[in-house]
């Protein structure tokens, strides 16, 4: 499967009479965008605002972040199972409006949504302070059940990203990256002397607003399976998560999965990257056992010499991470884990809920409990009072002057467990 990813670098986003990309600027016809995403009776109102890097703007509570992309050649369309039919994606050509992101906000759904600051201390911790954000503000009708609220907002985000992505369809990309993974036997034969690597991609599936979807299927209900890495670049995996903002994978991060990108960087040089095994993080022990057994079996069957395993979330999924590691290492396959830590505000507590001595190679994205003070911002998009109730915040997090004292857990993408960020931790 071969995908050309055409990157169109966007240096500014503005509202204008027509939605188009011109000279590196994305112009958006606001009315047309709102019409495109509207029509869901469950939402009382939808509005859109722009937030640019360096502005004194805070977006809270953030639900999801999505990258505008469009399928230019090849089967299927972006976000299969939601926006497009379920044709297999990941081949042909896809264009990306690089440097832009759709961010969904509005009344809080649950407890676990995030903050994006476009400047100040908090901006260092989120990758989405560096993107031009098209913020979709979605307010639900009264008494809307939470899971429907989440679904309605999720669809607005996906529709907006698909709509905006189309503006790049006929634009000549600034850069084209080609990614290719062959069918297994051919891929193995292509680099017979290089160690074979699989990426074990754990998807948050604890349920009750902790859901991830693969081609529209709730990942809770999957048996671990193979996916071509390029399928992910076309939005085959999307987030429906209201879990802690710091270490969930927003849809944007799935679409740009950095482990896949960095494995491809070494593909054909140091390793033979065979593809991804997606697995889930269900809460029942039997599910954990079954999924980790299946993952280890599949990784062995595919002939991997080594794997990278990434977690999503913390606490309960630590058990899945450790089971996957243990069972894969038991088969003589080397592992590297990517996780984050909950070591307490002073950094002195036990970081993970489970452990195995076999996990001797771990990358950490930092301690999510560390406290940060976010300065007041000139403008807040959304609902600042959510700071007191989102995970990582506490009563009094939102101070009278508009500043926020909270754990970095509240910041979208702060401790990305697919290693999208630079944060790490050391023992002192």
């Amino acid at each position, binding site marked *: 499967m071969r995908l050309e990813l055409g990157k169109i670098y966007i240096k500014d986003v503005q509202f204008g009479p027509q939605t188009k990309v011109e000279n590196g600027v994305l112009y958006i016809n606001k009315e047309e965008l709102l019409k495109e995403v509207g029509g869901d009776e469950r939402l009382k109102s939808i509005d859109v605002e722009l937030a640019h890097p360096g502005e004194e703007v805070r977006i809270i509570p953030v639900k999801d972040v999505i990258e505008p992309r469009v399928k230019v050649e090849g089967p299927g369309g972006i976000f299969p199972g939601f926006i497009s039919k379920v044709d297999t994606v990941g081949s042909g050509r896809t264009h990306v409006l690089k440097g832009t992101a759709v961010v969904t906000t509005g009344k809080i759904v649950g407890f676990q949504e995030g903050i994006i600051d476009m400047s100040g201390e908090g901006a*260092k911790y989120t990758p989405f302070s560096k993107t031009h954000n098209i913020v979709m503000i979605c307010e639900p009708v009264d008494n809307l059940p939470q899971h429907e609220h989440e679904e309605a907002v999720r669809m607005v985000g996906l529709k907006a990203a698909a709509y905006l992505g189309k503006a790049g369809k006929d634009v000549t990309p600034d850069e084209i990256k080609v990614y290719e993974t062959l069918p297994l036997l051919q891929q193995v034969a292509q680099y017979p002397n290089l*160690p074979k*690597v699989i990426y074990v991609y754990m998807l948050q599936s604890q349920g009750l607003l902790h859901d991830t979807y693969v081609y529209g299927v709730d990942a809770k209900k999957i048996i671990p399976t193979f996916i071509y890495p390029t399928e992910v670049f076309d939005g085959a995996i999307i987030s429906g998560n209201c879990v802690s903002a710091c270490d969930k994978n927003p849809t944007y991060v799935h679409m740009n999965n*950095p*482990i896949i*990108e*960095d*494995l491809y*960087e*070494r593909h054909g040089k*140091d*390793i033979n990257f065979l593809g991804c095994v997606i697995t889930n993080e269900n809460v029942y022990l039997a599910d954990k056992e079954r999924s980790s057994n299946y993952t280890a079996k599949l990784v062995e069957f595919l002939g991997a*010499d*080594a794997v*990278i395993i*990434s977690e999503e979330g913390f606490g309960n999924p630590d058990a899945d991470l450790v089971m996957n590691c243990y069972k894969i290492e038991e088969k003589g396959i*080397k592992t*590297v884990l*990517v*996780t984050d*830590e909950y*070591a307490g505000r*002073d*950094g*002195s507590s*036990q*970081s*993970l809920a489970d*452990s*195995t*001595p076999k*996990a*001797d*190679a*771990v*990358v*950490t*994205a*930092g*301690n999510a409990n*560390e406290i940060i003070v976010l300065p007041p911002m000139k403008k807040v998009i959304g609902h600042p009072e959510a700071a007191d109730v989102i995970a990582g915040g506490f009563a009094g997090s939102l101070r009278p002057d508009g500043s926020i004292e909270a754990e*970095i857990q509240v910041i979208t993408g702060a401790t*990305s*467990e*697919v*290693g*999208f*960020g*630079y*944060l*790490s*931790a*050391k*023992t*002192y």
Partner: protein
Amino acid sequence: MFKVVHYLNQFFANIGGEEKAHIPPEVREGFVGPGMAFNNAFKGEAQIVATVICGDSYFAENTQDALKQIIEMVKKYNPDIFIAGPAFNAGRYGTACATIAKAVKDELGIPVVTGMYIENPGVDLYKKDIYIISTKDNAAGMREAVPKMAALALKLAKGEEIGTPDQEGYIERGIRKNYFASERGSKRAVDMLIKKIKGEPFETEFKMPIFDRVAPNPAIKDITKAKIALVTSGGIVPKGNPDRIESSSASKFGKYDIEGVYDLTSETFETAHGGYDPVYANQDPDRVLPVDVLRELEKEGKIGSLHRYYYATVGNGTSVKNAAKFGQEIAKELIADGVQAVILTST
């Protein structure tokens, strides 16, 4: 120039060995014994103005009084830095160094540094609170330890940023601190994977703790014949806490006779635990240590008998190392007493 007060035991102050371990705290102007090496290592940036000396036994047996006296002695010199030891693998000396250093840090608010061997009991007690330079297990390590202790003390006094344990030579305090790495996490993971595949050395960013997993014993065949004991980390002790089990970070456990006791009441028992709201446990200690229920089962013949003694400690911030030691000691006694099953209650 920074003023330094140094702490030594009777041995390193050249007063004597075990036969002089009972001497009470005293203070001398200037440096004593290894203090000279410290003065050299400070290279004119600091100087020992006084040395406090105390016998190891005296300190161990009169900790609170000795601590008070020593703090007063240190205070008098208004120092900028406090240095204790190094104590190498001397257990009482190490514990004294660390206890005093922590108290000086807390009460006088000045930087403190001590040094000891990794297995010195003072390390586990205080490594989270203070900087302990890692040393050899005997005084032959003095030459290596002193420059590291002096350098770290100067850094602390100047308010400079303290590096990692590897850089500075102190024993890991177990504090996780965030920093921004130069590469993103995914790249670090791929690099680490390639090193691991090639068999090249790599450094994990998080050392997994090693949990002690205990395989459960087979089930009791006939519970109606079994002698059952109660063991709790919920802190239930006879009223007045006769063994003075600490309310947190327990250093001991108690063994208590419940012969003829059919019900724990608020008059006779209480909890020593400081980690939960004690009201309900104190109202009826059976809620944590179910003696009443077991006596009924004993009477009804549903269990063989309740063991004459129960064991209690406080599981509140108690180190895993202490807890494991208690467990081993308790298990040994229970087996010797012919107990077949134990009900463990927490809080």
